[in-house]
């Protein structure tokens, strides 16, 4: 876990409690809270998925999350608060794999920051997914190379 006054990031093997997240990280300066909740879905590329395993290089992932969150704060026009929690381990359908909570005085900055953060997580974080299928062997998914980063 890494944090400062405005950012909290963590990789966890525990279920993400979204209600508690909204309650714990509320701040009276915020007029808007945007919560992005990534969940395990039942199909991908035409295959029936029943679970996804997340492999994470935890210390570097948390460093990367913190850096991405700092970038989002720097790009914003108003003060933001960012919480980013990513699961590791085997998750089943409907479970939250990643939660990104952005709070800001007004909604525009929060929407923009939330989108920025999830897009950067997908191409920069040391995290890998193995899908488990109903009818065939599980498979590690192709991804984005970190060469040149």
């Amino acid at each position, binding site marked *: 876990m890494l944090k400062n006054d405005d950012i909290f990031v963590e990789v966890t093997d525990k279920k993400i409690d979204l209600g508690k997240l909204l309650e714990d990280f509320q701040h009276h300066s915020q007029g808007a809270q945007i919560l992005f909740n990534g969940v395990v879905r039942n199909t991908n590329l035409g295959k029936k998925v029943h679970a996804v395993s997340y492999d994470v290089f935890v210390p*570097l992932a948390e460093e990367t999350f913190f850096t991405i969150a700092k970038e989002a704060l720097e790009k914003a026009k108003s003060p933001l608060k960012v919480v980013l929690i990513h699961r590791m381990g085997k998750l089943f359908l409907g479970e939250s794999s990643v939660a990104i909570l952005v709070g800001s005085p007004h909604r525009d900055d929060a929407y923009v920051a939330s989108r920025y953060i999830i897009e950067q997580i997908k191409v920069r974080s040391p995290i890998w997914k193995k899908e488990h299928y109903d009818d065939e062997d599980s498979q*590690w998914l192709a991804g984005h190379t970190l060469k040149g980063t």
Partner: protein
Amino acid sequence: MKIRVKFFGSFRQYGNGEFLEVEIKQPMTLNEFRLHFENSLKKEDKKFLESALISDSVFANETQVLTNDYFLEREMTLAILPPVCGG
């Protein structure tokens, strides 16, 4: 000297699934080490045929991705990171 390389993602289907120790006789850059790693992995696991996986991967420590000119001059633990897909 021994360089321990921790496995992540699709590398976990090879060897013991956790790490590979590579013995190198002299200090070298990561770029040079890449070939030693590939040869060691092929020796460790005959199933490994994906040279492209190694060339598309990067090496890292706990705080940063390492550049190809990073110099290995003492025993250490690295991670090999194949193409990523989190979120």
